Every structure is written in structure tokens, then in C-alpha cells.
């Protein structure tokens, strides 16, 4: 006997379930009659029924109040009818082209087999596509990795990052060559030291793991050359000085046009899970530039542990496998203040050369001034804003040379004319895809990247986070809906354009100061310092303009979502005057601009699928204010430095007007 019928035979009460069915009109007429009959004589069950009905009524009232009696709008009705008509017309067209019922839909058995094969191939392709990890973008992985590193550094007062790497070089026709590299980084004061194995032992620096190996392996000239070669590669590709760096990888990746990219889940040697970003250039790449790079990030703590670089070579291949063997963040005190005093080589290229011919031909001061003059020339030509041309260490006995890739033959001729005043500085520029005569003749200057069986992830942008919020904002305008939408799109594009412009100046600023990350600016000769000031001021000024415009446009719209307390341009806590050096502060400006650019793209272009609207808005407004504060302080630092060190005869104005001394 079922529960439903038991109470009727035993003159007992209906079950809760039967009451529920009854008030919902379910359970059939028989059940309804029995429950009704029972309730008429049972106050207890009557009360239960009323409570259930009361709850349903309350729910319905609240729901009706919330939803109202609003119907689908007439516009939506018309739009639906129009869509339905189009669909029906399309179906009519398809129906006309369908095979007649009596005929085999695929024709002969051979055609059936071919069709089956095609289906299997498509399924296999889909399987390959989705066997990777599509739910996370490379941009997001890199962002998380950068954030994780920043968090580790921020956790300590006076942090020093100590890392050890094993670097393996492979080249066509040569046996693999390996060496160890040990670095110390002081991110707050922008100080850096690196040692190869033997040098570290001689210097007596606290080496935590490497020291134990030093007895079995000594540094050789080949080791030194390998590291030097790797650093040249990193520098040529605008990667960070650190051999494994998420920001360096992100910077290189962001400059590629239509890269082919995939993300795969892999296992490290110790069994830890990792994500590997593989990015390859989509077209021909100039000599000594990276054709493909892989960054392996440990999932557990978003720490980059390995980087593999494939370099374009005229007659084969060359690759570097950089594997981190040790990582720790320690306090400066635990290492001793002298750890960074060992640094003797200034960073500017002019003083890095090992060729006696070069150093004898010019004094270091002359060399530095020449380098800064050339860099300044590129700056005046606008080549510092993302163009792949650089002043690098020269070959064949030359101190410096201009090397890189430009977009057109006209641009190449323009730069050649500009550098014609410096006959000692060779110019080696290429125009990709333009049939560069020298490159074509030798067949050596560009390397075709093979079509990789990887997944294209360009265009993986999601819907804009700001869309609804912007639509609500522009709906306040007394304009037709289409015009409002057009304004919204125009606004979004303008914000993104300004952010990209700021992004370019931030990178230029970073590259400029990275030339001096091992050398105090006070050591620069006056003219070089004046040129540096001129260039830095240009970038700071442009950055200020773009950031302020962004701030003025965004604050009225984002303010309601997450309004920081600081007014426009105010000094926030993070940008209060402190003891940062000028390069360090410039690096912070760079990081803040990159972060703001990421937030803007996340909000307006939908590039960050995990972003939160309120958090991003708030972080963006605070970040923009911080950038403006930092720029003001940096400009002030720069002016003070120059006013003390540069004689009045070398004013920034004279630097602007002078191309060659």
C-alpha cells in the first residue's frame, strides 16, 4: 500500500507530499477529492494547506512585483519575425538544393567512405584542439605569474631574488653545451649581479646551492661566451635581463603580429603540474630573433621554471633551454650589503665590449656619448616607440651598430640617411617580405617558421566587461539607440588607443633606463645625461598626457563602480616620495602603465575572462593616479640630477637641436 493511500484507509492525515500535490493541482482527481474531504473536517491539515498556499501566494506576489506584466517589446517582436523570415528563406534555398529522396544522399559507396574519412579527420582535429587547456589564456597565465612574483617580492623588506639556472645551448651540427648561471636581483633598487660558477666561488658570495658544484666544474671561456650570447639574444628581442621572466616573455609576445600560440598542461620532472605557453612567430623572422619561445609555469605557485628559445639561423637552428635549478627571495641583510658592490661592468653597450680595438679607439666617455647620441637619434626618428631597431654592440671591429627590422624600404632609407653622419656606425636593417636583396641573395637572413600544428588563440577575446555599464551610461544621452551605441564604441576605441600609446612610451622608457641598470646615472658624462633627460622627459610628458586623458574619460564612468578616495592626479600612498632611484621609479611607472593597459583591455576589449568589473575599475583608477604621481616625482628627480651634474652650456634645448657633436 502506498503512502498516498494509507491515510485514507486509516482515517489519518494526508502526507506532506499529498498536500503539496493537492495545492499544486497534481495527483489526479481522486487524490484531490480525498484531500479536500479530509481537510474539510481537519483543522490541522487545513492550516497546513493554508500555509503552503500562503507561501506560494507570497512567492508569486513578489515575483509578479519584480517581473511585472511587462511583455516582450514590439521591437523585439519585429526583430524576431524578421529573423524567422530570413531563416525560412535560407531553408527554402537549401531545400531546393537537397538531393531527391530516392537518391543516396552521398552518392556512390566510394563517396560515402570519403565522407566518413572526412568526419573522422574532423573529430580527430577537434580532439587535438580540446586536448590542450583552452580555458586559460596565455595573457592570463603571464599576468598571474607576474602577480605571483610581485607578491613574493613584496612579502619581504629589502628583498633580493636569488636564482640559479642551467643553460643548455643546442645548435645545428654541434654537440649541446651547458653552463650554470647565478643571479641576484634587487628589484627595489634596480640592482643586479650575475656570476657564472667559478666567478661566484672566487667572489666568496654566499652561494646556496651552486657552491657545492663548483668543485666539480669550472667556468671556461665557452661558458662565458654562452651566457653572453644568451644575453644578446634576450636584449635583441627586448626580453627582460632575467633569463626566465614572465614580463619579458609577455613583452616579446606582445610585439609579434599574429603569433601562433598554444597552451598545454605538462608535468615537471618532480611530478608537479605545469602550464606551457608555446608562442611562435607567424612569418619570417630576422636573424638572431626568436622564432619560437616556450615558457613553463608551475601551476602550484605560478612560478616560471623553464624557458626554451628557438633562434633564427641562416643555415640551421640554435636553441637555448634555460632551466631554473634554485629560487629564493631573501633579505639584503642575509647576503651582506657588499653583494652588489662586485658589479664592475656598466650596462651601456659601449662599455661592455671585450674588443681591445674598440676600447682603444675611443675613451669610455666618448663611447657613452656616442651611444647616447645614436639612441637619441633613434628617439627623434620615433623608432623608440615599438620599432624593432636598436643600437647594439657592433661586429667586425665596430663599436656600435644600428640593427633591426623596419616596416618599409622608405623607412629603411630614412634611417640610413639619418645615420649617414656616423660612418663608423654600420646600419643593418631589413624589411620583412619586401625582397631584401641581400637577404634573398644569401637566403640566410630570414628563416621561415614551419607551419606549427598549434592552435591559433588570437581573437580569444570575450565579451567586453564594460558593455552593459557603458550602454547604461550612454543611454542617458538624448540620442537614438544606434547613435548611443556608436558613441559607446567610439569611446571604447579611444580609451584603448590612448592606453596603447601610453604602453608604447612606457616600453621606450623602460628600454632607455635599462641601459643604465648597472651604472649609476651620476657616472654618465654631461652630454649623455642631458640626452637621457631630453628623451626621458619626452616620454614622461607623453605618458602624462595619455594617462591624464584616460583618467578624465574614465573617472566619470568608472567612479560609480569603484571610486578610490584619491582625487585625479593626487599622490596616493603608493607613490609617496621615497628613496627609489630614478631607474627604479621609471620601472615602476612602466609596470603601472602595463597593468593599467591590461585592465583597460580587460574592461573594454574583453581580454581578461576572469576580471571583476568593480575590482578592475577601482584598481584602474588608483593605478592611473599612481602613475601620474610617480611621473611627477621621476621628472623632479631627473631635473635635480641634471641641474647638479650637467653644466649650463648643455641644456636640454641644445640637446634637442644638436644631432652630432
Amino acid at each position: 500500500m502506498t503512502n498516498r493511500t494509507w491515510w485514507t484507509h486509516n482515517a489519518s492525515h494526508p502526507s506532506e507530499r499529498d498536500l503539496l500535490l493537492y495545492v499544486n493541482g497534481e495527483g489526479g482527481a481522486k487524490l484531490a477529492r480525498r484531500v479536500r474531504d479530509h481537510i474539510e473536517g481537519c483543522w490541522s491539515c487545513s492550516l497546513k494547506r493554508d500555509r503552503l498556499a500562503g507561501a506560494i501566494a507570497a512567492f508569486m506576489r513578489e515575483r509578479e512585483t519584480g517581473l511585472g506584466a511587462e511583455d516582450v517589446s514590439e521591437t523585439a517582436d519585429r526583430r524576431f519575425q524578421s529573423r524567422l523570415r530570413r531563416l525560412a528563406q535560407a531553408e527554402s534555398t537549401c531545400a531546393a538544393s537537397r538531393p531527391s529522396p530516392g537518391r543516396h544522399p552521398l552518392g556512390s559507396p566510394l563517396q560515402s567512405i570519403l565522407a566518413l574519412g572526412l568526419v573522422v579527420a574532423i573529430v580527430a582535429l577537434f580532439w587535438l584542439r580540446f586536448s590542450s587547456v583552452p580555458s586559460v589564456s596565455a595573457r592570463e597565465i603571464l599576468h598571474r605569474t607576474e602577480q605571483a612574483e610581485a607578491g613574493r617580492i613584496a612579502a619581504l623588506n629589502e628583498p633580493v631574488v636569488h636564482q640559479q639556472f642551467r643553460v643548455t645551448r643546442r645548435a645545428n651540427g654541434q654537440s649541446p653545451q651547458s653552463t650554470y648561471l647565478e643571479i641576484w636581483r634587487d628589484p627595489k633598487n634596480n640592482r643586479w649581479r650575475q656570476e657564472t660558477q667559478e666567478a661566484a666561488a672566487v667572489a666568496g658570495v654566499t652561494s646556496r646551492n651552486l657552491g657545492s658544484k663548483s668543485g666539480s666544474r669550472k667556468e671556461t671561456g665557452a661558458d662565458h661566451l654562452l651566457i653572453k650570447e644568451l644575453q644578446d639574444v634576450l636584449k635583441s628581442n627586448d626580453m627582460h635581463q632575467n633569463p626566465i621572466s614572465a614580463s619579458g616573455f609577455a613583452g616579446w609576445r606582445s610585439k609579434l603580429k599574429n603569433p601562433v600560440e598554444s597552451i598545454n598542461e605538462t608535468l615537471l620532472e618532480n611530478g608537479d603540474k605545469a602550464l606551457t605557453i608555446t608562442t611562435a612567430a607567424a612569418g619570417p623572422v630576422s636573424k638572431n630573433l626568436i622564432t619560437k619561445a616556450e615558457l613553463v609555469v608551475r601551476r602550484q605557485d605560478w612560478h616560471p621554471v623553464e624557458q626554451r628559445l628557438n633562434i633564427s639561423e641562416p643555415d640551421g637552428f640554435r636553441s637555448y633551454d634555460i632551466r631554473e635549478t634554485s629560487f629564493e627571495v631573501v633579505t639584503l641583510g642575509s647576503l651582506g650589503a657588499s653583494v652588489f658592490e662586485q658589479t664592475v661592468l656598466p650596462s651601456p653597450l659601449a662599455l661592455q665590449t671585450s674588443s681591445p680595438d674598440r676600447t682603444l679607439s675611443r675613451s669610455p666617455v666618448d663611447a657613452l656619448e656616442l651611444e647616447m647620441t645614436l639612441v637619441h637619434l633613434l628617439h627623434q626618428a620615433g623608432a623608440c616607440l615599438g620599432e624593432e631597431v636598436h643600437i647594439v654592440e657592433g661586429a667586425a671591429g665596430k663599436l656600435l651598430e644600428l640593427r633591426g627590422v623596419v616596416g618599409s624600404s622608405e623607412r629603411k632609407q630614412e634611417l640610413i640617411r639619418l645615420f649617414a653622419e656616423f660612418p663608423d656606425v654600420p646600419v643593418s636593417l631589413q624589411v620583412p617580405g619586401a625582397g631584401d636583396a641581400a637577404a634573398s641573395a644569401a637566403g640566410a637572413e630570414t628563416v621561415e617558421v614551419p607551419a606549427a600544428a598549434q592552435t591559433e588563440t588570437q581573437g580569444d577575446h570575450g565579451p567586453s566587461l564594460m558593455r552593459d555599464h557603458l550602454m547604461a551610461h550612454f543611454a542617458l544621452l538624448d540620442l537614438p539607440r544606434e547613435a548611443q551605441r556608436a558613441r559607446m564604441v567610439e569611446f571604447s576605441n579611444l580609451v584603448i588607443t590612448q592606453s596603447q600609446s601610453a604602453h608604447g612610451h612606457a616600453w621606450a622608457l623602460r628600454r632607455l633606463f635599462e641601459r643604465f641598470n648597472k651604472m649609476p646615472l651620476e657616472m654618465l658624462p654631461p652630454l649623455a645625461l642631458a640626452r637621457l633627460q631630453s628623451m626621458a622627459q619626452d616620454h614622461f610628458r607623453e605618458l602624462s598626457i595619455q594617462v591624464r586623458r584616460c583618467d578624465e574619460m574614465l573617472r566619470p564612468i568608472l567612479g560609480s563602480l569603484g571610486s578610490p578616495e584619491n582625487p585625479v592626479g593626487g599622490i596616493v600612498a603608493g607613490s609617496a616620495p621615497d628613496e627609489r632611484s630614478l631607474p627604479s621609479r621609471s620601472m615602476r611607472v612602466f609596470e603601472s602603465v602595463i597593468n593599467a593597459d591590461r585592465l583597460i583591455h580587460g574592461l573594454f576589449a574583453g581580454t581578461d575572462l576572469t576580471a571583476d568589473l568593480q575590482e578592475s575599475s577601482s584598481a584602474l583608477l588608483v593605478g592611473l593616479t599612481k602613475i601620474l604621481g610617480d611621473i611627477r616625482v621621476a621628472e623632479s628627480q631627473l631635473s635635480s640630477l641634471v641641474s647638479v651634474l650637467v653644466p649650463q652650456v648643455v641644456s636640454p634645448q641644445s640637446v634637442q637641436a644638436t644631432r652630432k657633436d
Partner: protein
Amino acid sequence: MGSGTKQALAILLGSKEIQQRRQPSELEARVSEFFVAFKLPVYRYLLGLLGNRDDAEEMTQEAFLSLFATLQKGTRIDNVRAWIFRVAHNLAMNHQKRPRIVEAVEEAEWWKLSQERSDPASDSEQHMLREEKRTRLLRAMKCLSPQERHCLDLRAEGLCFREIAEVLSIGISTVETFLDRGIRKIAKEIND
């Protein structure tokens, strides 16, 4: 009620469905009739799920266009109303998996919607009582599981237990359980 709507309801209630592939123009007329008959409950259900009128309208249209495409293939549909709700429900669930600004209608959203539509003419004492009751009801609605909430919403739009089971792809007894729990949660809050 127009003849087209009557025809649509007759198809629904009699479970006589289109099995033969029909001409697109004929189907277009049929689907238009279904749209007129069911668009409002489907739209209201989606609005309750998504909290966004534009999205609800868009997905309502998508559901009916899917109906056209499915019928065009000659697929048999026994209960068009349940089928439409099922498609609409799945579209909404997929939409909610995507990043979005507007969350599904939560307590705050209900509160805002209700406030916009509350009667401004009532006196303050009634207003306070109503607000108190509404606060408790909203608290109860917040405690509802998504499945309980879906069952209640579908029931509110007039679907029977069998249809709700079909829409949510669950058993009828499970629907009974969810509705029982949901109603009791609300009853407990407003009666305690």
C-alpha cells in the same frame, strides 16, 4: 484568442506534433503562432533567471528560432511548451557560464526590481509591514537552491510537474522534492 493561437494550443494539448518535413513558409507561420502563445512566459522565466531584459529577449527569440530549425528537420516534438522552456533554460544556463556583469536575479536584484514597482501610495505602517515581510521572503528566496528556484519559477509560469521534469531533465519525484523544499523554506520564513 486568434485561430492561430488556438491551433497552437490544440497541438500542444493534443500532443499531435509535426512529424513530416514541412515547407519553410508553413513552418514559419506555425512558429510565429507558437511565439505569440508562449513568448511572454518564456521571456518572464528568462528574465527571472538572467535579470537582464535584453538578454531575456534575445534568448527568447533564440529558443523559437531553434524550434523552427528543429521542426524543419522533421523532428517530432510532443510538447512544444516544455520543449521551448527546455531550450530557453539551457540557453540561459550556457549564458550564465560566460563572464557577465549582471548576475542571475539575486536578493539585491529582486529588491531593486520590487522597489521600482512598489506602490508609493500606501501608508507608512503598511509599507513597513510589507517591507518586513518582503525582507523575510527575500531571505527565504536567497536560501533556495538553484534547482528549487528553477522549479518554483517554472511552476509559476504554469508548467505542471511533468513538464518541469522535462525542462530540467530530472525525475518527477525530484521535482516534487524541490518544490516541497522550496515552498517550505518560504513558508517557514513568512510564518515564523
